[in-house]
């Protein structure tokens, strides 16, 4: 990761070895945050595997915070999806036996 920005509120993170897979889902989670005024990502060049992820907050919140919160929320979503899926599989396989 590298960060670049004029003041703490609008920062552009450069994430290496990433593409739309993480970029789009992370952008979705960060946009859900009401403190965020602007959030977007772009792929600088298709031959290089890195994305520019920009967050701009309204007010005095440092931009790192929505980034961290977005990552944590995305982890929470994945964990819940994983749990639900495994429970469903287990129920289906146990129902097949019963």
């Amino acid at each position: 990761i590298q960060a670049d920005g004029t003041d703490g509120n609008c920062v552009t993170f450069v994430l290496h070895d990433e593409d739309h897979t993480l970029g789009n889902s992370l952008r979705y989670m960060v946009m859900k945050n009401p403190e965020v005024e602007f959030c977007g990502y772009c792929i600088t060049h298709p031959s290089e595997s890195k994305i520019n992820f920009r967050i701009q907050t309204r007010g005095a919140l440092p931009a790192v915070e929505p980034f961290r919160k977005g990552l944590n929320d995305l982890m929470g979503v994945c964990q819940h999806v994983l749990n639900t899926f495994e429970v469903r599989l287990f129920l289906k396989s146990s129902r097949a036996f019963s």
Partner: protein
Amino acid sequence: GNYPGYEDAWDQQRFEEGFRVDVIREEEGMLEFDMVGIDAAIANAFRRILLAEVPTMAVEKVFVYNNTSIVQDEILAHRLGLIPIRADPRLFEYRNQGDEEGTEIDTLQFQLKIKCSRNPQAAKESSDPNELYFNHKVYSKHMTWVPLGNQTDLFPDADFRPVHDDILIALLRPGQEIDVLMHCVKGIGKDHAKFSPVATASYRLLPDITLLQPVEDEAAEMLQKCFSPGVIEIQNIKGKKVARVANARLDTFSREVFRHEGLKNLVRLARVRNHYIFSVESTGILPPDVLVSEAIKILMGKCQRFLNELDSVPME
């Protein structure tokens, strides 16, 4: 949704209440399941990870000791690389960059040694290659596992072989032989498509078909023909035939309705926004439900990696 003007803050509780997973069908190598209450960005992330970032083992380096067949070395190596190998990639590590030799924790060794010879007992006038020659077809079942180092102790019950035994690799004639040694390593689909663990993984949204007005008699019959079989069902209410949407899920969205003037305005075709029907078909290396779990864990791993970096590197 995150389009302008639509404010909805993230609420884990509300998400968990609205989210559900239904496993529809689980067959040999194929899994069809529904995810309801999730957004396109995350569903697409899962699909992309299933295709390109779930690791598998595949042949990477082929050491050719003798190849007198008409299949060129590089073509043979390419074909061998594409063969799916039944080996759980979670038991192995990635090979370090620049490491030429390969240790027992990151490499699987296979040998293919086969020679075609003439069958002396064949009939004089026979022209059937199956009778005339021994071993003239090289199948993937001729690949044998050669344990490296302490792999026999690490994997005592394991039986590493290609997933399918009947993949034709090359054809030989008497006097030709193939003698190669293959190294399999762990890789991801992003690097080379041979490492992709799914035959394909796709999703579609649940169709939403609404009839804006009641449709009767011939119009109902024509409407039923416009959609895939099973979508529209005709009921007999008070002697009249009335159409009803029975199972919108089966529709393939051919939009045939809009070609008919009389039926165009009676139907509204849409998609349910957050109901995704996933279909995962595995090549046989790992069962599809394991693949989906691994994909979700990989997405979590990516987030964790950035969280760790954020915490470790001080931001100015």
